[in-house]
């Protein structure tokens, strides 16, 4: 077990290094220039060189790469070209903002998907419930998440006016950490959170349904049924045994959430790390974009590792070699 974990950890480091390296070179071979706007305003060539030096963009690509890796190993991701401050200072509050929609969205999406999936899986095969459940899930799954976001905005914000359509709070409201516990914040949270829930719902629903369908014909279900317990408890037995794929799905999904909700953050102008990542790429703010990608890589790798380990705990048939 220990050997397995160590080997997986080493693999994870390798993957993160590879992602970091690819990102580093990708940004530098793009034909864009982060000093362009300053040049357009007349910056002299000497000043431009000074700025490039300050930003670590002088010397050969290899030199820059070695310096970058060296700094990275010391935990220094550099300063954002745009905000002129260390990237973590910029990213940290944004990560928290993202987690506010990501974690509850993912958990509620999983819970709701599991509940509906159980109902759909337990319903009569080929019946109305099963057909409409599958139809609903496949339709939502087929719709890009920005369409879901825009549809929610149009209906609940523009047309009905029930919820604000952008941002994390009305201007001038409570500030600091206390803002997260205000009605104003919850009011703004509603639509983006709903979009994330809808985004994650169908996969859970379908996973759970197929698990329940598989389990419902097992002997132990017949046994439970024979005991004469109510129908919903029989279903619960099937559901419990169908959760394994769902739980193992949850870990990588948590990491993917960060990437997956980028679009939702943009649609709802939610000041999270996903929206900032897109802005950083368009602004050629390499350090910020690289740090955000690094963060994503680490999260995905760790989540996959956690999923693999959890699988062993949840399913005794899994053996680590």
């Amino acid at each position: 077990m220990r050997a397995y974990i160590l080997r997986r950890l080493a693999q994870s480091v390798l993957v993160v290094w590879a992602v970091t390296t690819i990102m580093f070179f990708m940004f530098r071979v793009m034909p864009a220039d982060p000093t362009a706007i300053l040049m357009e305003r007349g910056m002299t060539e000497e000043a431009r060189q000074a700025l490039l030096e300050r930003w670590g963009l002088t010397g050969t690509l290899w030199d820059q790469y070695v310096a970058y890796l060296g700094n990275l190993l010391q935990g220094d991701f550099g300063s954002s070209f745009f905000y002129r401050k260390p990237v973590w200072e910029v990213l940290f509050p944004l990560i928290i903002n993202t987690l506010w929609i990501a974690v509850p969205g993912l958990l509620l999406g999983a819970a709701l998907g599991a509940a509906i999936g159980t109902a759909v899986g337990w319903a009569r095969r080929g019946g109305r419930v099963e057909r409409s459940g599958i139809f609903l899930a496949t339709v939502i799954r087929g719709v890009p998440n920005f369409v879901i976001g825009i549809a929610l905005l149009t209906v609940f914000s523009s047309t009905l006016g029930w919820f604000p359509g952008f941002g994390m709070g009305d201007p001038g409201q409570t500030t600091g950490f206390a803002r997260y516990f205000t009605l104003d914040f919850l009011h703004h949270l509603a639509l983006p959170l709903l979009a994330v829930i809808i985004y994650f719902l169908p996969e859970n629903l379908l996973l759970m349904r197929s698990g329940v369908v598989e389990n419902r014909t097992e002997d132990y279900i017949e046994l439970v049924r024979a005991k004469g317990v109510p129908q919903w408890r029989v279903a619960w037995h099937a559901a419990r045994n169908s959760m394994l794929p769902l739980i193992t799905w949850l870990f990588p999904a948590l990491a993917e959430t960060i990437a997956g909700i980028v679009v939702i953050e943009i649609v709802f102008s939610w000041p999270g790390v996903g929206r900032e990542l897109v802005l950083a790429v368009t602004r050629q703010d390499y350090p910020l974009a690289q740090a955000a990608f690094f963060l994503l890589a680490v999260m995905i790798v760790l989540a996959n590792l956690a999923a693999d380990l959890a699988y062993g705990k949840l399913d005794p048939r899994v053996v680590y070699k």
Partner: protein
Amino acid sequence: MTATIRRLAAPLWLPASIVALCAPAAAQDLGEPVPDLQIAYYSTDMGPMYEQSARVISEEWSKLGLGFRMQPVQFSSFISNIMVGGGLEDMAVFTVGADPDRVDPHYWLHDLGACGARRNGAKWCDEAYTAMVKGQREIVDQPERIAAVHAAQQHFYDVMPWWPATNTVYGILWNSKKWENVTSPAPVAAHEGLVDPWLSARPLTDDRILDWAHYEDVTTYNPMAEEGAVGWMRFIYDTFAKNNAQGQTVPWAATSWEFTDPTTVRITLREGMRFHDGEAVTADDAVFTINKVVELQPPAMSSRIANLAGAEKIDDLTFNVKLKAPDATFVTTVLTYAFILPEHVWSGYAGDMVARDVVADGAAIGSGPFKFKSWRVNETHELETFADHFQAPAYDGLRRLALGQADAIRSAMLAGTGDVASMVLPVAAMSDLAAQNDFLDFLEIPSHGTMLVWLNNQKEPFTDPAFRKALRMATSKERAAIEGWLGFAVPAGEGPVPTQLGMWHNADLPTIPFDVEAARKVLADAGYGWDAQGRLHYPKK
């Protein structure tokens, strides 16, 4: 029999046809065909106007028998490769923005046109012209300088190395049920920021905070790190002067300035000014700021400070600025840009001043009409009115909402969360919103921002003045304004200096009407000709 003749004659059809087609060309004694020309323009991430303008203009040019290759280029690549990198292949259609310091003719005459100038991407070099535009900068007597500037425009007009096509129209959209006088250019001059919420706005309700629905966040509150006067920082820090809509520089934190000799400017500060922490603004602060900038040479300010030698105090409110060389543009490009920093906040700072995080240090302190209150990255910036300012606005503060996308800005304006929006939505969209909602008002603001047609003046056919002239005559500025910019641009005047700059523009330059037939005649007179397909050929050598 007929079939046999047809079969025997068949191989002769092709050469016979070629001879027939070439006959008119040979008759006109044509040279080589003019190859297809590449037109570079900003790609659509900057908006559809550039591609659309390049297309409609080139449609008219193609009537001269020319073919084109359309080449969208991302903004930053355009600047690095074409504007300053010397990479213009054939032609470009692109826009330069209405930056406040571009109310000075030096940018249009020198920076975009002098031999070797960094932003002379059209690669034109005319020694006589270059001497003229370098000379005008050194004339500190304004009427004399205006005459020199007009003469340079005449020279440029006669040669036509490139030309402006349209001037940009900006728009401002505001909630007229909550605010009035939002668009008045007084007391802040129009070209200070064109479409930013003015200090003169007055609230009509109890909501006394002006919410500005904006696209982007701002980068910093450190004036050393950013070219502040084009940004948000000018609300917090005062500059010595401001430019008005007529291209004149008017007093702000300084009440007067005069050249005591061609390299010395004596500046007098306004009395009674205070920084946000209560300390008085004195000549010591101004001298400290200028000398620090000269010492540190902050990269973002490089174009404006290159000619500064230093500053010295005369008395509490008066100081001299020394220049390395005589420079009339000092007034428009330095007095309106340099911020006054509080010496007591900055002099003891031991770190890198250009990189200083002034928000973290609690040092975002200026003497401007607003005080810094808070900044949440990618969300909001809050400023409070500084009641002691000599032009303190009649409301309590300003909030900038960084909404990140046009739909959110639209929603914010419709929901009443945003009080004012500018530049961030297409002008046509702002106009529509105002037409559909009676609580929203909209105003168009013409600017000196200009869409230019650039030619590679070092390459055939553009080295030929007749070719340039024909192309100029066949440039439909009206179509570019109406179809390219959906009517939210105005056809530009003659010469490189925009007509919007009033006294600096030479209004005596005769208008060149759009006339494709006349353009073809110019080409024909210069020896160009057309083949049977209508393709333009060079004169025979």
